[in-house]
């Protein structure tokens, strides 16, 4: 199999994810971008796992999926609280810790 395509796909997805995390204002979209980054990593893991004919990568990917689910739960709870307190999901308005 050809590894390159998978790696390029993963890199593209990861970059989109990084862009979303850094540039988006909406908390929900930031969370979705984080998911994109995690899944890019998953693709890498699975690709190498298949390429090296080892199951270790699959296991890691499963772990990442599980942790990601938990992370989204916590993340959405945080976004919900931000919305309740500031009446907007806009992350730029969360700057109470400004020095």
């Amino acid at each position: 199999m050809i590894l390159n395509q998978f790696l390029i796909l993963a890199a593209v997805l990861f970059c989109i994810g990084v862009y979303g995390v850094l540039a988006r204002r909406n908390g929900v979209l930031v969370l979705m971008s984080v998911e994109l980054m995690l899944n890019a990593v998953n693709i890498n893991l699975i690709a190498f796992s298949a390429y090296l004919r080892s199951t270790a990568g699959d296991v890691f990917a499963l772990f990442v999926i599980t942790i990601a689910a938990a992370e989204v739960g916590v993340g959405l709870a945080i976004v919900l609280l931000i919305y309740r307190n500031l009446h907007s999901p806009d992350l730029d308005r969360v700057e109470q810790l400004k020095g």
Partner: protein
Amino acid sequence: MLDYAWIIPVIPVVSFLLILFFGKKMPKGGSEIGIVAVGSSFVLSCITAVQWFQRVEDASGAHGTEAIKAFGKGLLSAGEEHVIVEPVIHTITWWRNGALDFSVGTQIDGLAVMMLFVVTLISLLVHIYSTAYMHDDRRFTYFYAALSLFTASMLTLVVASNTLQLLVGWELVGLCSFMLIGHWWEEQDNTNAALKAFLTTRTGDIGLMIGVIVTFFAAGQTFDIVAVNEAALAGEGGHTIWVVGASCLLLAIIGKSGQFPLHTWLPDAMAGPTPVSALIHAATMVVAGVYLGARLYGVFWQGFSIDAGGVNAMAIVGGITILIGAALAFVQNDIKKVLAYSTISQLGYMVMGLGVGAWVGAVFHLFTHAFFKALLFLGAGSVSHSGSHHSFDMKKDMGGLRKFMPVTFATFMIGSVALAGIFPLAGFWSKDEILAVAGQGGFEIFMVVGLVGALLTAAYMTRCVYLTFFGEYRGHHHPHESPKAITIPLIVLAGFSVIAGLANAAPAGIEKFLEYVEPRTAFPEGILVPEFDYLLAFISVGLALTSIVVAWVFWTEKRQFGLAGLTERSGTAKAGHTFLLNKYYLDHLYTDVIVGGIKGPIARASYWVNMNVIDGVINAVGRGSTGLGRVVYKYVDQGAVDGTVNAIARETDQAGGLLRPLQSGRVQRYALMLFAAVGLIALALAIFG
């Protein structure tokens, strides 16, 4: 069963949990779970005992138990091999700390087997008895749960294979007795009694903890009971450390087994329900101390040099306890308190027995005493349940009950006669064994103490029986016989009180304790096995009988001899009576003198010392220091130190101001910096790596 003995304590633990969670929903309030559990423990204990007998007989081979007996008596002729019966030990690792393994396990040998039998039997009978006695109690289920836990703790202690596990069982037993003594906690007196029992025994428990630690190091870092005993007998690490260890462990025995001077909690513990008193006094709480002494006998043997004869701390404590306990039993009007002081006195026999080298005698006395003392307590409970309307006052509410309660009367009589040590009931054999060893092992003075104790015991039990069952009924109720759940345990115990002594009836050639109970490993070699002394036996029985007759005449015919009101007329008699009534003023010593002293004069004295001496010194030092301080303040502090500090602060402040914009408070700005940094590092690695 020898290999699976851990099941025996686990069953009551399970029953404790079951009663706690499901007891209230059961038709009999959880009592059936407790009875079934303790009953199965009892059956398993019996199986264990039979298998232990088998093991001993197998080990003795063709010679039979004669060989074991000969070995125990040190009568081995040349060429005969030593008959060694190893205890069955199983352990698992509890936790591991560095190179040290902390294990839990079971050690089954003759002593453990005997204790298992006694504890489970008495506990079973108490469980059955309580179904009637505690019938309408508001915390019936809770009571049974606590009884189960109490039994489980004692069984854990009995099968323990190392001193650490022993300590755990020991503390659990103390906790459970606290719970049960304070069972009726709505009344302040009961709560106080429970607290007193707990705190007094805690005083001794400190001794156990230190003793365990001392023996741990003395025996080369091991908690294992066999190893500790072997090391102690070999005198490893010098004699002194074993003296320290034995003294600490003796303190533990004094606290737990109600020995002088920490015996004051035991009579107060009568505040608990009567079945609990029976359990505490016969099978669990107080015998834990004697059991500790028997278990770690090597330590005491070495520490107190028991083989040298003469006097030692252990025998003295036991001897004093025999006499003071017996004397106090004369002035009590509460039937349970008479029995409580009697227990103290009998425990004194056991501790003295250990102290004079009568290991078999002490353990044997523990065995027989368990039956007749449980019988007496349950009998007293029966009297109060059905005869005197929940009162324990012999002078006010009892008297003449033999007509109304024939079964209780007959069994109580058997128990009293056994306690008084009349041939051929149980108490005679075990007491005589202790006295014989004391006489023949160079402890003559303690033999005399024991004989005087026997005399007093017979007299106060006569008084107790007379006041309760003879004369005219002085109460205002309708006494009747107790229900079957109460009388059947009494009859069973009466049976054992009659025959238990025959287990080690030396003149008849039956020496089961010597054969099956006395350890063959890690045990003092050449421990004295007494010849049966007919003269001594006649003297002790004669004394007891005389004292019964004298006491009988005294209490029945008081008026004819002009003895009535003796305490009012004679100054000496009155002083003695008051002295005894106040229990030698020991409680006053503890609460008023020691606690009050610390609160009052000692506190004031230390306050004075504090104000005048210490403060004076401090003030002088203070004045000198302030003068020096002013100089230092002006030049060193303000000039040099503050200058430096201020300069550093200024610089930091400016640097902070420069970096401040970076702390924007926006998460995405931070993430950008993070990614930028990662990108730069990646770039650097790509170029230079």
